[in-house]
């Protein structure tokens, strides 16, 4: 009997793999940084989302 590989789980795994792949491509195409953002790098924003304080 032929088995269908197009199951919801296989679609799910494919999406995760594509997503991680896109993240890696973006990473490799982006300028390098020495560190992830410290509060000072984020304009001393009040919240982690980077929104400036009034």
């Amino acid at each position, binding site marked *: 009997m032929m088995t269908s590989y197009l199951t919801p789980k296989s679609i799910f795994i494919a999406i995760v793999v594509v997503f991680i792949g896109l993240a890696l491509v973006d*990473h490799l195409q982006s300028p390098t940084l020495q560190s992830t953002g410290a509060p000072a790098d984020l304009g*001393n924003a009040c919240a982690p989302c*980077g929104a400036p304080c009034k």
Partner: protein
Amino acid sequence: MMSRATARSKDAPTREMIVFTGLGVIWLAVAGLVGLDTGAKGVTLFALGTALGTVFLSFQYGFASGWRNFLQSGNMTGLASHFLLAALCAVLFIPAGTLGISAAGSLAPISLSLFIGAFAFGIGMQLANGCGSGVLFSFGGGSGRMLMALPFFVLGSLLGSLWLPSVLAWGQLDPIQIGGGLTPVLRTLVNLLLLVGASFIFWQAGRRRGQTMPRKLVLGSLIIAALCWAVFLVSGHPWGVTFGFTLWGAKLASAVGFDIASHEFWQWPGPARALAHSVLADNSSLMDIGMLIGAGLWAAFSGAFYKQAWPNQRQLLAAAIGGLLMGVGARFAFGCNIGAFLAGTASGSLHGWIWFAMAMGGSWVGIKLRPHLGFGEK
């Protein structure tokens, strides 16, 4: 002859081992690239995100379900544990400056957008059956519902970022610190009194109704608090989830030709820096990816990955609407249960408490809508 069901169940351990191994390889590849770019700090945050994904999924530590249990059946144990978690975080977040720690809590303006956004988020998290962290760890754990909710969350938060500057202009006050005029020690004590008091009130009210606090919830709160401390010390900010989603949306939109960088939100220092660099160089985005992989690793390891039931079409529609509402709401309200409620209250910011009240109101509306969108009455 072996039945299909038997054959399928015999295949399951092998398939889950493949998923586990595949995710492990992806984790190592991402960690290696992060290490080359942002060094030990980046790898540590990625590992902390992975640990959070594993802990949230293994302890089933949910905000949306805890709040729904409270509103539907008067079960207070979830809320008691959430305020316990915030109190544990506040012990470090509020006096950080006085202790000589180079980190700052999460404060946000008291804006009209905060009220609207938190209310919308509350509706959304009941329709999607998960909040910001819940969507992420359930998605990583193989949930079909979150396969629908997450892309709409990303879309909603991108739209929210484009609209936020205009909505902020409707009216806002500066951030308000609870006990702002007091010494750091007194401010910490006042906020701890509020948070421990809230946890105690919910715990006591539950006890009177014969509810006992599950040890799993207490242990989960302790472990998550320890991880939140570590994130705070390493990144310099409390843990936040939803800005990563906003960044993913902006990156994808930019990739297909939209001029995202010219919008006001994306010219603010933090977002501009994030958009110009890798998705693995932003704290929130990096930890989100770690959380997703961590939850996937745990789901594959524990055998839960292939046991997830697929929701019906109406529930998928609810997940999409919920994701969209949470996305817009999170940007308007400066975060989700983690970035606004937990980080806000644990930083002694009034906006965290307003977020809690408004999102609770939204949750009530969301619960009323659930039966119309394919959920059972409970």
